[in-house]
């Protein structure tokens, strides 16, 4: 039993491990190394070993990050946007996932497909659709400003604002919360809930004391799959954002494109990845403790 457990371990974890080592870890390490090099004057990286034989390794890019607080501020702002997005996604996705999970087998697959179908259309035109919905002449903005005018408040612009960015962030990430939640909720045993009800639990208590704790792995999975990508996103602020909605993803993109400062871009990317992994690890640790206690 022990021997084939060992062999089984490598058989199952081997292929994905190998794939990721070759096609992810190796290329990424190249860029981690790049964070210790200097940018070439006209793009890319300066040669590792220059003509005189000296190896070009320095911590300039790292020092820059450590000594300029503005980047940390932008990181915090991005964490804020990503956190709000995650919470909103959770609030919206949970009932949806629960509904699908409790539907008849026949309808379940269709309902699930319906959730993800819109996301097979192109990202850009979906964002453009939001520009139409949030535009100043569209029904939504006009109604809102009409109400505000009655209250004597100046009109607001829904487009090119933090609101637009958040709405679009939630929209784009919603299926990635729904699907993991569904996968978890689907296996909940209705008998548990029925038993709880028989014991006198109200609907809210049934949810909070039975369903929700059981669904926590799904919640964490969904939260990870929403928070982590949302943390580094740049396209939505670029298209819909206002002048103050630049996030860390935008700054990183600029390093690789406009500024052609790959070392600094690598530094920011490493910090981003580190923060994301740390937060994910933290959430997982809290989750484990919570489960042990319960």
């Amino acid at each position, binding site marked *: 039993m022990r021997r084939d457990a060992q062999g089984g371990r490598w058989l199952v974890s081997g292929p994905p491990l190998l794939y990721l080592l070759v096609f*992810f870890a190796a290329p990424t390490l190249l*860029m981690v190394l790049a964070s210790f090099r200097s940018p070439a004057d006209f793009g890319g990286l300066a040669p590792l070993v220059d003509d005189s034989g000296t190896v070009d390794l320095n911590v300039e890019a790292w020092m820059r990050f450590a000594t300029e607080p503005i980047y940390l501020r932008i990181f915090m702002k991005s964490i804020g946007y990503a956190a709000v997005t995650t919470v909103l996604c959770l609030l919206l996705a949970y009932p949806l996932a629960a509904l699908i999970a409790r539907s008849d087998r026949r309808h379940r697959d269709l309902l699930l497909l319906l959730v993800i179908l819109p996301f097979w259309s192109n*990202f850009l035109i979906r964002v453009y659709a939001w520009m139409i919905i949030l535009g100043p002449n569209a029904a939504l903005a006009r109604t809102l400003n009409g109400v505000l005018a009655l209250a004597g408040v100046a009109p607001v612009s829904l487009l090119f604002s933090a609101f637009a960015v958040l709405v679009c962030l939630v929209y784009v990430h919603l299926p990635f919360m729904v699907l993991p939640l569904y996968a978890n909720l689907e296996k909940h045993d209705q008998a548990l809930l029925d038993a709880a009800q028989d014991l006198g639990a109200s609907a809210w208590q049934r949810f909070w004391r039975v369903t929700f704790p059981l669904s926590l792995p799904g919640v964490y999975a969904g939260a990870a799959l929403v928070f982590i990508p949302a*943390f580094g996103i740049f396209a939505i602020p670029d298209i819909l954002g206002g002048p103050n909605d630049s996030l860390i993803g935008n700054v990183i993109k600029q390093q690789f494109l406009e500024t052609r400062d790959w070392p600094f871009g690598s530094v920011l990317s490493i910090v981003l990845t580190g923060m994301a992994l740390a937060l994910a690890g933290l959430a997982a640790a809290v989750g484990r403790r919570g489960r042990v206690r319960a």
Partner: protein
Amino acid sequence: MRRRSPWLWAVALLAYAFLYLPLVIVVVYSFNDSRLNAEWVGFTLDWYRRLAANDEMLAAAGNSLLIALVASAAATVLGTMAGFAMHRYRLRLLPVLVLCPIAIPEILMGVSLLIFFVLLNVTLGLLSVAIAHVAFCIGFVAIVVRARLAGMDESLTEAARDCGATPAQAFRRVTLPLIMPGVIAGALMAFTMSIDDFVITFFTAGAGTVTLPLQIYSMIKIAVTPEVNAVSTLLMLLTLALIVVAAKVSPSLFRTDPEASPR
């Protein structure tokens, strides 16, 4: 008896409405008689006609579909293995390796993969794009599968082993059907990520390789015409059709009805 609270229904419907409002606009505007995706002007089928003649766009759509199918299939297999391994064994490296591609900024991953491929003298093309896509899709599948496995009743698998099944048989006949909803959810996410990816595809695509996102994003500075709405609508319908056909042709693949159900 299954009681469904009206609250649940209401919020769920709201969520569906939220999901579909932009999509309705996308589809409706594919018939819009204006080059810009900004305001309704009038009805026309012109854009669909133009799309039918636009070989470039159609080829790009075809490439995207092909890459997405292959990449999501491979990512689902590898990701399920990873998710299972992470749940079953105490691994330290794999969970990090699986989560990193999701966390790392796409532009860094794209540039690093390009440098890597160039270093290895790999010809860039559709295959290099697919390889890149698999790398970042594995994580999505793995996380969902692991979440599904968490809290799953191990006794069923043990019972199967006790009855004489090999580990492989136990996995195929007992575990896999039980985690199938997770696997399918992961596959759907991987497919979605792949078909719409721009940044990584941009860097790993070859000199003659165009996928739909590459084509569309290059239009971003001029005008993203309703032809894009048209191709998106058609691609959505085509994908839906593919899945429906696949489910009919190979029902065992999508069976979420495990042979040994605890119910």
